[in-house]
């Protein structure tokens, strides 16, 4: 993998929902594994479909910096599938959390 061995930082902010209470998760890796980089690159940044029908669903703001590239997306809960879901699950599992 050409883009491997770069610094990685990911922030996930879940906002909205009926409660309106936001939560935030973050992870930093000075020397991330290739699969982290691959997972970030697998997400369809800039191609997120809107959800104009749902009300009170969560919105996920995801910001990632890896291999000197900066990515940012606002992902409706309905669209949080595939690599997005995997990325968020992994940041929630391995990263730190503050409400």
């Amino acid at each position, binding site marked *: 993998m050409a883009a491997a061995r770069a610094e990685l930082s990911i922030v996930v902010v879940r906002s909205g929902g009926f409660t*309106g209470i936001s939560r935030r998760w973050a992870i930093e890796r000075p020397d991330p594994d290739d699969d982290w980089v691959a997972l970030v690159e697998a997400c369809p940044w800039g191609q997120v479909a809107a959800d104009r029908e749902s*009300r*009170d*669903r969560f919105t996920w703001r995801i910001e990632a910096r890896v291999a000197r590239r900066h990515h940012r997306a606002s992902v409706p809960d309905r669209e949080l599938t595939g690599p997005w879901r995997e990325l968020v699950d992994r940041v929630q599992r391995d990263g730190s959390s503050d409400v």
Partner: protein
Amino acid sequence: MNEAYDGLGATFELYADVYDRNSIDGRGLPLDGSVHYEKDYDNAFWNGERMVFGDGDGQVFGRFTVSVDVIGHELTHGVTQYTAGLVYKDQAGALNESISDVFGSLVLQYSHKQTAAQATWLIGQGLFTARVKGVALRSMKAPGTAYDDPVLGKDPQPATMAGYVETEDDDGGVHTNSGIPNHAFYLVATGIGGYAWEKAGRIWYDTLLAGMKPTTDFAGFAALTLAAATKRYGEGSAEADAVRAGWSGVGVAIDGGGAS
């Protein structure tokens, strides 16, 4: 599922008995919902067709079907979708949220036959577990005071325009800035007195059906509520005066200087 059925029934009753509306679309659409969505899911939402309820994580939140105002809130998103068609962003989105809190609270008040003075005006009472320092998720009577917890932080809702929150999260803070129109409704309802669903609720319901645009903002909505109150109760009526005072109390100037 019984709790959800009870909440569906109570919501259907308020709309049918008080506002003569047959279900959320006005044409008897069968009301439906899903419960126990995902594991530890801390949310209840409307997906454009049905309600979906999580069971909560048991740490911070319990079941989202615990209080009928939550169910009334979600179904009212359906009513708004079929009537005003408000978008879900910024002030129009906060109005969308507030209308759901207003009628959610009225479902609860109607089912307990509480006057405006007797009502708690809390949204989501009983949703937090005993671990959380808070009585509910939102307070229409005193926005910003529903919870203050070392882990969750403090209820961020403003009661007036001076506290309006600009943010990109939560579709522009729709669940935060709803505190402003929520409090305006509380002021109108308590200003009029008696049962809130009878007059204040009627004015808000009339407004939903009367010329709102998807992007109506607070000031535009305020003007429409005043027009609705004037149409139904007359110019210079106590009800129209209460509407004017309510919006003034939260710092929303009515378009056209408030003249009717």
